[in-house]
């Protein structure tokens, strides 16, 4: 098959997994509209915040693609708690920060935006970026 025969829709579904994942998403939580939202501002990290409530790997067995993102977020809860999620889950009750996406119902198990923001934050933190620099990058990429 010549590469130019590939359709744009097919390509993006393959690259981003958005179409396939969205179609397979179960449960009422996932019925929420998944579009990027304007970012009104980032939250202030809560003093003493830890990754204690981040879902353990045992609860990710059905979502292997998300494991790396959860592992990354567990390393930097104080950073991820200072970032607002842009996928729309910020409107759910009890939401505080991107860290919330990795706790409780675990939206980040299936949401590529939650995963992407978490991975990007971890990658930039590893490169020595500050929280403000990470926020700026998140806004440029996902805002």
């Amino acid at each position, binding site marked *: 098959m010549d*590469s*130019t025969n*590939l359709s744009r829709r097919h*390509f993006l579904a393959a*690259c*981003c*997994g958005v179409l396939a994942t969205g179609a397979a998403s179960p449960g009422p939580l996932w019925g929420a509209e998944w579009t*990027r939202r304007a970012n009104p501002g980032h939250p202030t990290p809560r003093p003493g915040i830890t990754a204690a409530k981040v879902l353990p790997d045992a609860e990710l067995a059905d979502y292997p693609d998300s494991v790396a993102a959860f592992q990354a977020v567990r390393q930097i809860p104080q950073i991820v708690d200072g970032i607002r999620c842009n996928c729309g889950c910020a409107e759910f009750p009890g939401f505080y920060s991107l860290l919330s996406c990795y706790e409780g119902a675990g939206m980040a198990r299936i949401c590529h935006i939650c*995963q992407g923001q978490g991975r990007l934050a971890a990658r930039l933190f590893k490169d020595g970026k500050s929280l403000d620099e990470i926020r700026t990058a998140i806004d440029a*990429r996902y805002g």
Partner: protein
Amino acid sequence: MRHAREWLVAVAALGVLPAGVQAQVRASEHAVVAQTVDGTTLTVEYSRPQARGRSPIFGKVIPWGEVWTPGANWATTLEVDNDITLNGHPLAKGKYSVWIEVQPKEWTVILDPKSHVFHTEHPKPDSSQVRFGVTPDDGKGPDLLTWSFSDVSATGTTLRMAWAGRSVSLRITVPPSHPITLAAELAARYVGAYAFQWASRDTTEAQADSAQVKASVWQVTYREGMLLADWVPPPFEEWAHLVLIRIADNWFLPGAMVDGQLFDVEGDLVIEFAVVNGRATGFEIRGEDDEVIGRGTRTK
């Protein structure tokens, strides 16, 4: 009869029509038409009169010289959630009532920031208004007054009003969400040739396709103020020619160029260049989940 009409106008103007009255069939039904262009949303709200055999509408039903709202009942409104240009005239973000002073040849379009106005309250000339002349087109129909967005491009759209053999087309230009041009000194670091290879990812049908793992070439050039990438062979036809749209230092969104025009910007992907000593050594394409989809390595 006259008293009844005046009463209805007064009650409608107060916005206190009981629900049962509001729910009835109207001679000029309410309509809303909206269009988003590059993140700017344009909304026209109006009521739709019908010619119903009255002819001519312009010059008789609507006398020459009348300042008329192209609709019925409450004045037609245009709401824009960004600053735009309308037929080349700046129009600030906001909601406007729309009026047209009709004459046999040249019409004057009037946008008045006082938006919630009944159609009988014709606006007086005011410095807050945007006014400009247009030449209406002649034609047939439609019987039902119609506002529409007759074309859409990456930079704007055409808003058209048509009724009873006359129409006006208003060219709208929206501000770009990201400029597609780039300063030459910034672009220079990326210009060159890159060998591109898809990263190995798993399981999906398309990724299993051999085309996904075939190597290809990116030729990045700077032309007409834009950073452009010719992709050979492209993953699909529309991506043979890309404009790289800068969103942050060394980060770009891919924009598909078709026939020399920006056709589509893929915001789910980002191209991240690695720059060493002021020169790009390669790039990664990352998906929405921040995973690497493919890599380019400079060859020239």
